[in-house]
């Protein structure tokens, strides 16, 4: 085999190895990609008291249909609420009074945002913030409420 051909294939091999390493470092271990590189999106924000186990890149669904993805989650230092930025597909314009709720698929499945459209004529613009939000259901809080309710009902009877 000609030396140049041999060196070419070794070069391709080394390049392939480095591309694989790059993919492992960026795609597998930390690249926070958008909703989709080919999809045009607009960003809206929503603030939640508790996001539970919601993760970046979690789906945003309306009527079960994927309409966007969570692009970042931060804590607002003013009111200590979780500020979630959502990238929504431009072909789905939502009204300004749309509401967002953090839901769970199944009992213990992944968490996603369920977006419900409102009745207002005005549409959400890039950078707007949703005012109607419902936080994630945290099982421990529910149990605590149930137990404390149960105890408070029980106390007068025993007295």
């Amino acid at each position: 085999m000609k030396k140049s051909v041999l060196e070419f294939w070794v070069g391709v091999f080394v390049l392939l190895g480095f591309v694989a390493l790059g993919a492992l470092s960026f795609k597998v271990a930390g690249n926070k990609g958008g909703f989709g590189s080919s999809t045009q999106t607009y960003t809206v924000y929503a603030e939640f008291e508790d996001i539970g186990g919601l993760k970046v890149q979690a789906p945003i669904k309306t009527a079960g249909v994927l309409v966007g993805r969570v692009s970042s989650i931060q804590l607002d230092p003013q009111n200590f609420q979780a500020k979630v930025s959502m990238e929504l597909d431009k072909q789905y314009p939502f009204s300004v009074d749309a509401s967002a709720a953090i839901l769970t698929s199944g009992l213990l499945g992944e968490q996603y945002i369920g977006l419900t459209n409102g009745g207002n004529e005005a549409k959400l613009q890039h950078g707007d913030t949703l005012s109607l939000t419902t936080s994630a259901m945290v099982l421990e809080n529910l149990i605590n409420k149930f137990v404390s309710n149960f105890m408070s009902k029980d106390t007068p009877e025993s007295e």
Partner: protein
Amino acid sequence: MNFIQTIGAKTLAFIQTLGANALFLLNILLLLPQSLLRPRLTVRQMYFSGVLSVLIIAVSGLFVGMVIGLQGYTQLAKFKSADVLGFMVAASLLRELGPVLAAILFASSAGGAMTSEIGLMKTTEQLEAMNVMAVNPVARVVAPRFWAGVISMPLLACIFNVAGIYGGYLVGVEWLGLDAGVFWSNMQNNIDVSYDVVNGLIKSLCFGTAVALIAVYQGFHCVPTAEGILRASTRTVVSSALAVLALDFILTAFMFT
């Protein structure tokens, strides 16, 4: 009594082989400046040990990833936790299966070939001829093959990992219907570059060194007959697999506990 004698003799022989391997490695390392002066020899060997192993490594990686994806999904779905499939596939490949399986495949394909080639050169007295011509056979024949193995192994492990993760994606997302965003986000949120990717690379570098050293040592020290070459090639594959698994345990204990 005979049994104890046999165990003692085997232990002594093992320690002796370990020492001989270490001295051989030292000899190769001392010849590093000479190897750097003639990189073409190493590049040529990288073609035979690295490029020609890419296909088997990539295909094996793809299938291993697909199997983890299928088994993982089936088991995780029972506990309603199928969304952690992406993390499970990536973690098992990056930390353990990628470096270990790539090294064992590398040992059985390129390692065995390396041993046979050097063994054949010894049998046909080419190494002796080099000595007569004042050419150091370790520098000319052994070192390039050793360095080619050491360089190729981490690259092959990376290719194995990427193919495996893609295999897991194919089964989990494309076939079984897991959400693509959930698959990637769980992986990205839990996989750490320095902890998982770099540790995996260090592992594959150690495995590459071990496999390449065993292969060239067995070839260089084989009995110069057809049967000797055959035995040496078999020993390369068996010893490499055992060395990789033992090293994996030690490295895992250091890195991930």
